């Protein structure tokens, strides 16, 4: 029984890191793309959405090729003394990648819904561009972004395929909850599997309920 809490703690750690990275990265990229007027925008958007539709094993393979010791980035990182394959940090990268489109899509829709007139008003009132972002665009997009971030957290928590390929299945080190469930079922340990499945399901339902409360915003307290 006690063994179930180790993969749960690891899953939470990985998912929290992945969510924190996606919060910064997803919001920055979404804001940049929502202001960028170029035909290349749709191509960039499609590439950034790929993790949503590609099989996680394909993503895991790409990551292995890129980050493995023989990969371009991996070899360079190895020189610096950083190895990502078969580490929990590798699992964070896998979880970040698969959950990224969820933050990106939600944030982009939220930024595009902000009335440009309000940003103009802030500029005329003396604000620099960075201040306009932090004082007007970001607070007005905050609800949509939060909903996307919660979905991304749930997705990162359940990540299996890409994680297994890049981080492996080392108990106590890289064995996350979903990987541990698979291992427990394979080993015929139904009690552990059932407990971990229940914990995962409850967590995901709670996150989805929270996201659902935040996502649609039909009666905005603030809107005239």
């Amino acid at each position, binding site marked *: 029984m006690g063994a179930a809490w180790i993969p749960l703690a690891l899953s939470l750690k990985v998912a929290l890191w992945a969510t924190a990275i996606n919060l910064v990265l997803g919001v920055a990229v979404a804001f940049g793309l929502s202001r960028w007027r170029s035909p290349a925008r749709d191509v960039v958007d499609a590439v950034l959405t790929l993790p949503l539709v590609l099989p996680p094993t394909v993503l895991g393979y790409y990551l292995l090729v890129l980050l493995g010791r023989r990969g371009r980035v991996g070899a360079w990182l190895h020189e610096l003394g950083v190895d990502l394959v078969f580490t929990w940090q590798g699992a964070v990268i896998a979880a970040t990648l698969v959950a990224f489109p969820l933050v990106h899509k939600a944030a982009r829709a939220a930024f595009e819904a902000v009335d440009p007139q309000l940003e103009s008003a*802030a500029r*005329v009132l003396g*604000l620099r561009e960075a*201040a306009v972002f932090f*004082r007007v665009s970001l*607070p*007005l997009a905050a609800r949509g972004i939060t909903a996307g971030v919660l979905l991304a957290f749930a997705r990162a928590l359940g990540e299996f395929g890409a994680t297994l390929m890049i981080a492996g299945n080392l108990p106590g080190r890289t064995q996350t909850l979903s990987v541990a469930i698979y291992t427990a079922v394979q080993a015929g340990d139904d009690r552990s599997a059932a407990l971990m499945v229940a914990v995962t399901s409850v967590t995901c339902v709670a996150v989805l309920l929270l996201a659902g409360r935040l996502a649609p915003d039909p009666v905005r*307290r*603030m809107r005239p």
Partner: protein
Amino acid sequence: MTVDVALRTTLCADERRFTLDVALRSDHRRIVLFGPSGAGKSLTLRAMAGLIVPEAGHVRVDGRTLFDAGTRVNLPPRQRGLAYVFQDYALFPHLTVAQNIGFGLRGGWLNPSRRGRDARVERWLAAFELAGVADSYPARISGGQRQRVALARALATEPKGLLLDEPFAALDPALRGRMRDELLAMQARLDLQLIVITHDPADVTALEGDTFELCEGRVVGRSRPSSRSWDHGAFPGQRPMAE
């Protein structure tokens, strides 16, 4: 104060081309841009504020060059010393009335706090009779109150000039007259350059300003407050829209 504006710019949107080509120069403290919607009035005002960059021309206010396509001068909106009151007021929906008014008084990345108000904000709240709704959100107050918040927010930054885009269009007729009087009284107190856009001849009469009539992106007429008559002679080849 002299306002000297000459602008040319072309906008394209789905097969439609609109060319704005206006020149106006006036020493009057109240300048009125009058014309039907789509005449280019708002575009002119946005270019003066620095919200769009015209292809050619210049904007000079009180001898200071804010924009000049020839010498590549283009001050950002925050350095132009002009405040802008938008047609729908553009109040920040996530901030209270007091926070909206204090918005421009604070640089940096944080909005004014909900508690602990600036003394200047208190003064503006009192001046525009908004103290009772200071902690309300813009969605919760009346149209007239919204307009006063927009005015107070613009004036709190102590601008040299105030640009107003159809300031009375969203108000009901009874309130319209009162707000016109309030605006004129405020200008008398503050010694402020006003540039007002309107499509309503009643505004033109009440404001008694140096009025430029715009139509399809061009100035087609001018009426100085002393002459009380429209002069279309200086603009050959253009048919006046209204007398």
